[in-house]
């Protein structure tokens, strides 16, 4: 679903964006109490039968959190997984709620920003069409 599949990852650019948002990311990862209260505010979580992979906290920890913990050292396959999380499992409606004040949409937006910097983004033109 992403473009430019063969190009090498520009680690410097990934780290630059991570560093730009380092304080917020670090605080969010530290503050998250894994209380799962954010889950209830996500409509995608509900429409997917409360699949835990749709919990906002899960989405941010496994996208931006993963990039941060691995210091951006993620290959294209890893970026593909992150793309799946930040585009297919989140529509960035900004309605999710964290009782501890983590701005989860901002975290997802940063993860998308990093993906976009590597030309990884959702290809709407490749979306499967429903059968007629």
């Amino acid at each position: 679903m992403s473009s430019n599949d063969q190009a090498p990852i520009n680690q410097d650019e990934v780290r630059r964006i991570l560093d730009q948002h380092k304080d917020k990311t670090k605080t969010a990862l530290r503050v998250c109490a894994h209380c799962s209260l954010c889950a209830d505010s996500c409509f995608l979580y509900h429409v997917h039968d409360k699949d835990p992979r749709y919990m906002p906290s899960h989405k941010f920890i496994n996208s931006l959190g993963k990039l941060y913990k691995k210091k951006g050292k993620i290959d294209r396959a890893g970026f593909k997984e992150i793309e799946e999380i930040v585009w297919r499992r989140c529509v960035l409606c900004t309605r999710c709620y964290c009782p501890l004040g983590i701005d989860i949409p901002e975290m997802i937006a940063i993860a998308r920003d990093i993906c976009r910097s590597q030309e990884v983004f959702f290809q709407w033109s490749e979306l499967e069409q429903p059968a007629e």
Partner: protein
Amino acid sequence: MVKAKRKPLEEIKQAIQDYTRVLNIGCGGCVSVCLAGGQKEVNLLNAKLNLVLKNDNRATRVDGFTVERQCNEAFLADLDARVARYDGLMSMACGAGVQLLAERYPDKPVFPAVNTIAIGIDRQIGVYEERCRACGECVLGYTGGICPITRCAKGLFNGPCGGTNDGNCEISKDIPCAWQDIYNRLKAQNRLDDIKKIKPAMQWQNQTRRLVVQDEYASRYKDK
């Protein structure tokens, strides 16, 4: 969602060719979905523009950047430092996104690279049909789910007009009469009473700028 279509290349080129550095800003929202102004379209347009500008011996160079939502300031913060390096901005977002950019960067000229067309539905990849003109006075509940504002050439609330001809519109025999379709659908649902009452003339709220405040949140803003 909002549907848009890219402007002709020549029109875009004319708009930006007097600027040296132009930032083309895409949007990850509706215009990405309708394949008019997402990151892919930004990359494609920039490649074409840079080529024609170079061939015209113009100094203008276009770079690209895509934000997640141009109609929400929360997603524009990352642009601030970037925008300072450019003397002109181009937006591939809908009209709302273009205006928010112009509001946030009032010292920069902002040029739209797409025409915002409609609120519509997805038929196929790259094929979209207008279905709503956001008139602010939805009557779909009484018209069998067929919009007389969008579908009827005259936007009649009490149709059909005298031009309806064997189920087609007088402006073209290839265009079905919206009110014939409304009648047929309501008749099939045994709901013809819904259109027997005369609807009052439309109060065209969209002649002035509208503000949407959801009732549940109105108390937060009542003093503002």
